[in-house]
């Protein structure tokens, strides 16, 4: 079975390590914050100028001056800090954030990512995504493995305008966890109940399948 949004978030959370500073994109990545293990501290960076983002506020705690990068009202945890956008992206561009998780439209086996623009259709802008993919060594892209019509999103070459070139090393889809190495996808884990054949069929870019591909634990 393909992973649900919650299961994707759970699997993302398995990448967290104690003491990690993490930037989570809008959508599924943000959900991963709900699955931080109890014996672990992870601090969330919001690129609009907050390190140490907490949960959504109680109704009476709402503060228009305290939002996240998705413009949602949020809170701060103890030990949080606030700063300007230049400092925030100094942190990101300078490689000080330990893990970045974000969504995409397409990823290819060169590590290219397209996530911000569908020409003639969707022109919203890249926000902080280009800085995030250029600044982080450790990035996980989360997305569905294929479009609703069954077109693979894991390509030999991205077809949409790129957000970043040769910067993605790990992709988590609803079907599989894959690394990108030497111009190939490498199948690391499959979603529970999903066969290797199904993943091969829905992966358009070159794919290496090790002898043993364990099921994810979610």
């Amino acid at each position, binding site marked *: 079975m393909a992973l649900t949004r919650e299961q994707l978030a759970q699997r993302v959370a398995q990448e967290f390590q104690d003491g990690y500073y993490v930037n989570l994109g809008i959508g599924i990545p943000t959900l991963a914050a709900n699955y931080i293990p109890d014996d672990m501290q992870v601090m969330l960076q919001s690129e609009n100028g907050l390190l140490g983002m907490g949960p*959504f506020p109680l109704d009476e705690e*709402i503060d228009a001056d305290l939002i996240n990068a998705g413009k949602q*009202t949020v809170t701060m945890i103890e030990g949080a800090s606030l700063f300007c956008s230049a400092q925030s992206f100094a942190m990101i561009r300078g490689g000080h954030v330990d893990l970045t998780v974000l969504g995409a439209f397409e990823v290819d086996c060169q590590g290219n990512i397209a996530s911000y623009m569908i020409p003639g259709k969707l022109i919203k802008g890249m*926000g902080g995504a280009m800085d995030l993919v*250029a600044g982080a060594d450790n990035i996980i892209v989360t997305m569905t493995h294929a479009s609703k019509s069954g077109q693979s999103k894991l390509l030999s070459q991205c077809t949409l305008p790129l957000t970043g070139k040769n910067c993605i090393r790990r992709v988590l889809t609803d079907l599989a966890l894959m690394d990108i190495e030497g111009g190939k996808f490498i199948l690391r884990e499959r979603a529970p109940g999903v066969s290797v054949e199904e993943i091969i069929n829905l992966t358009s870019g070159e794919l290496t399948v090790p002898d043993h591909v364990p099921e994810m634990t979610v």
Partner: protein
Amino acid sequence: MSGFDKVVTSYEEALEGLEDNMTIIAGGFGLCGIPENLIKEIKRKGTTGLTIASNNAGVDGKGLGLLLEEKQIKKMIASYVGENALFEAQMMSGELEVELTPQGTLAEKMRAGGAGIPAFYTATGYGTPVGEGKEVREFNGRHYILEEALSGDFAIAKAWKADRYGNLMFRKTARNFNPMAITAGKIAVVEVEEIVEVGQLDPDEIHLPGIYVNRLIQGTFEKTIEQRTVRKA
């Protein structure tokens, strides 16, 4: 002897000298920390042909969205413009020129504009449409593109508290682009919630020194929330 007193008492005075076809650098992220009354004054003045650098373009009827209604903006330099139907319509029709700039690059371009750095290299945007036509250079085996500084005839920004000399403190994530935007304006106009007497602010706690501020005005703010999200008690 006016000395360093930057306070003006009307929004008209705050934006005196702003003319058609000028460039404005604006602070704010979404509708958070935007100079909302200064934007309203630009609408009232009817200044047109403006180039505005701001992370976002407001929403319909709020923030910079107000200036789109009257077609006062000729060109937007922004990182994310996804919340504004009017914006999309004007962009698609070609009435509005748009230069999409990555958020961190935009912040750094404003900082550079204020800091006398004419250009810098960044990996952000290399190999993407943002890098097209820009110089590429390798440092330590990695590719970077050259980005030039941004500065404006005016900067408009919002801070929380100021003393009369224009020393500024910001509040929470309403800080965002405001400090850099201010440094990048030939005439930097800042509106604040509270102006205190000189000597009331701890010099160690000032986020941006008054040297960057030309005009200061106290206003009242709507502070519209874009995405009101709460948890249950």
